[in-house]
């Protein structure tokens, strides 16, 4: 399945990457070869093997007990922009 430039731009949009960003043309070009490589998988015949894996495996459950978490200041310490005790982002609703 060859991947077109249009397709690459569509994927970039889904991934929130900038198709006009520095070096992206090269990435778009590399995608051709990388997709061709993963396409080799199409020739593999798997018979009745499906993607349902490890049906014998159980979920790791634990009791729902409250545990100590981080305070707000600790978490906000890494935020790039903080205003009024919260993470600041550009206006979303006009």
């Amino acid at each position, binding site marked *: 399945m060859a991947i077109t430039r249009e397709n690459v731009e569509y994927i970039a949009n889904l991934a*929130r990457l900038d198709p006009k960003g520095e070096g992206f043309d*090269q990435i778009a070009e590399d995608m051709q070869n990388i997709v061709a490589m993963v396409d080799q998988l199409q020739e593999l015949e798997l018979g009745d093997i499906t993607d349902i894996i490890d049906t014998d495996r159980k979920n790791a459950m634990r009791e729902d007990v409250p545990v100590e978490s981080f305070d707000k200041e600790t978490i906000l310490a890494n935020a790039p922009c903080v205003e009024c005790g919260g993470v600041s982002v550009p206006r979303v609703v006009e």
Partner: protein
Amino acid sequence: MELYQKTAAELSAMLKNKEVSSVELTKAAFARTAQVEEQTGAYITLTEEKALADAAAIDSRRAAGETLPPLAGVPVSVKDNICTKGIRTTCASKMLENFLPPYNATVMEKLDEAGLIMTGKTNLDEFAMGSSCENSALRKTRNPHNLDRVTGGSSGGAAASVAAGEVSIAVGSDTGGSIRQPASFCGVVGMKPTYGTVSRYGLIAFASSLDQIGPFGRCIEDTAMLADVLMGHDMRDSTSVPREYPSLTAGLNADIKGMKIGLPKEYFGEGISEEVSKAVLAAAETYRQLGAEVVEISLPLSRYALPIYYILSSAEASSNLARFDGVKYGYRAKEFDGLIDLYVKSRSEGFGPEVQRRIMLGTYVLSSGYYDAYYKKARAAQRAIRADYAKAFEQVDLILTPTAPTTAYKIGEKTSDPLQMYMGDICTVSVNIAGLPGLVQPCGFDADKMPIGMQLIGPRFGEQTLLNAGLAYEKASGLSNIVAL
């Protein structure tokens, strides 16, 4: 013999006998680092002040008569994708260049409990995506055996720090070969434990179903000692396996008479350099002489391991790395027009080209119309690969293969062709796909004096058998504790 040339086991004995203090060892580690770091570039961050304080605390406890764990007071380096509370954890990315984690990874707590002294955070390919350490956005790391060559990756800094004698042991992580291939390139020992045996809590996720933390050392015993510290069940990682974790160090036994070792024919053909093949086959011969039975086996799906790996790992990466959006933490673009543009610019400026390639591939294989053909099929093929291995382990105890098609290549040689770089992972990725343990150790040198590494693959939870077979070969070959530079 200088302190930096000693193994962790030797240092542990010296500490116990009070022939040396942890402060002296830590100072010696930093003195060696000052001597070679400019050449190797193993570290992104050095934590000398904290290390000396930690070492002094261990010395006080020992002086007070406390019985300490075996590795207490021994310096160790940690890969910079493992969260260290209040200590910069960058993933070698501009995205996390100034990130100070508010918590420690479980393995950091385990290192602390065992009294190990962290010397600093080592370099890697950005977000552990790469096979040469050249994708680091922050540092250039060079192979201590030849400074014009790559270290391998992604745990290139970890491997270099051990190979150059900056430390005797290091903690790395392995998603598709990221411990084993740099161990091979740098002439040291590295083990990727069974999936689920080392907690991933606090390991910055690349591909959660494949990622596994593991140890580096310059000999099998050191690798076993560090594995004993790292392994164990953790409530905070839902994929962590609740079971007994008996001491691998205590279980070491070099008698391998009667062990059955398989050589998969698919790993010795086209694409594998003759020198590498020869060295690994010579190791098989050594095993025969030691009383093991060596038989040819087949892993027919090996040729599909690369597409399966790149589909699954990139799909998971695209999802895991969605959290880096310039909002809550990490890099935020300086100029943007609205919220969506903030995401797009922050990600495009913050991630390097390889990370963007993987996010693109992952988004593609998960996107509507392509999901069944790629992701779903790769998941099914993953089952088939597991079945392939299960069948092999009905015949043999262990599998012996090369670690990489070649020895360490020149810096810059493969950077312009990502696909060529991916091909270098052909011998290691299926071990992650199947969730198995893999051990790599030196088995010779090529004509350019670059180390060649062999890989032993075991069944799930087969670490003890792996290490025993590794020890037997190490003793027979004498290829142990190789310090470069």
